């Protein structure tokens, strides 16, 4: 049912954890549906210096979270904003069709974290 890559990331997810003094936090999902992702980012010189996550959810929710942190780390904000759900699914060698919508929210969580970072910066600059 799941690709080898999905099972790899699920079994030993990368970048699990919180960043206590994160520059941005993105929360996506709904506990009712069974998938909630928190993505934490640390930004330095316009690049994502660190990306971490905590996820409540199924195999693909955890695997996509892990994959998105891998894809985003070291990228500029603009590059990271262009990472799509499909990019995450492709990097995982595909997701079962039923999981494409519900458990593939990781890119959204990343974008929400970047959004949060921008909002905070605007707040402190203004």
């Amino acid at each position: 049912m799941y690709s080898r890559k999905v099972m790899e990331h699920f079994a030993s997810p990368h970048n699990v954890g919180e960043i206590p003094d994160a520059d941005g936090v993105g929360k996506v999902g709904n506990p009712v549906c069974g998938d909630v992702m928190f993505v934490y980012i640390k930004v330095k010189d316009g690049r994502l210096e660190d990306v971490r996550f905590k996820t409540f959810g199924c195999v693909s929710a955890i695997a996509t979270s892990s994959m998105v942190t891998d894809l985003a780390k070291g990228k500029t904000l603009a590059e990271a904003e262009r990472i799509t759900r499909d990019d995450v699914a492709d990097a995982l060698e595909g997701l079962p069709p039923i999981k494409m919508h519900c458990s593939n929210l990781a890119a959204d969580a990343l974008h929400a974290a970047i959004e949060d970072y921008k909002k905070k910066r605007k707040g402190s600059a203004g």
Partner: protein
Amino acid sequence: MRAYLDNAATTRVAPEVIERMGIFFSTAYANASSLHAQGMEAKRALDEARAAIAAMINASPEEIIFTGGGSESNNLALKGVAFLQKEKRHIITSAIEHPSILGTCAFLEKQGFSVTYLPVGREGFVSAGDVESAITDQTALVSIMHANNEIGTIQDLDRIGKACAAKGVPFHTDAVQSFTKAPIDVTRMGLSLVSLASHKIHGPKGVGALYVRKGMRLQKQIHGGHQENDRRAGTENLPGIAGFAHAASLQTPEHITKMAELRDYTITEIERRIPDVIVNGSRARRLCNNVNVIFKYIEGEALLFTLSQKGIAISTGSACSSRSLRPSHVLRAIGLPHEVAHGSCRVSISRYTTKQEIDYFLDTVTAVVAQLREVSPFTKMGKYEAYTDDDHTHEGHPAA
């Protein structure tokens, strides 16, 4: 190491059963309806199997119809009664029935029947008082399962049966999970119809039975020959039927005691080793082989796959493990919120289950739950953060 702990889904066929079935493939394979000597031998074996199953639920042999399994028995019971009704177009059942009951009820609703789905309490019990007050002069049938397949709760059929008898309404029970594990007495329980299946008791798949009280009329669902007292056409599956009856005869009280001990050990050890656990179902009236727990803050499909990679087979009521993306209707009916229901784990044992397998499961699940809780944002919060994001409500998901 491997541990098969999904015996509520299906069981290993007992070696004695396989041996018994073999005869009906290789030598005694004649059609039980044929008039030659070989046919009569087959008929005798069929009669023996019928008598054996009947005796186990205090019924007479002619009250047993062999079917193609539990789902067919449930369909035959409900449709068989419903399709004979002219005036009485009301059926009473419970919110925690197996899909083969709920699906049939939904179909009958489309045919113009009205169905009352009785709620259950926290432990999964239907109240006999609720049954009695739901019965009207329109009620054609009450169908309440004996033991629940997910949480193992065993209903008090004596009391529900009395309530039905008092109002003169036929009473059906789905006893697929309880057969040979909890006593069934059609007379004492006032039952008119009982569904049974073979593959949950170390018999072959695709065979079951429906008990139909003498005098109870039933609309035939499979037309053709006159087999099964003219109530279900088709050449009898003699290997399956003989295997089913033999499997039923092999279960002993010692097996039940052994399973109940392993069940209690499993529950006690889970509670001792793992924090934030909810035990679902009743502790007092529980199927001897059922354990159902919630590991809070994690999701069941993730748990299932991790255990599966370590050779352990369990099941979960999580939405993500179901094709419908809905969490178990049973866990919802006992009052668990969606987010909590996602973390359920059902362990179902059999007489073949060993303490070593249970210990391997306990050690593994303790580590895996801790590992998944490491990843979950809710573990540290100690709650499921109440926050919703409407954009991510799944299509087809019931509103929260």
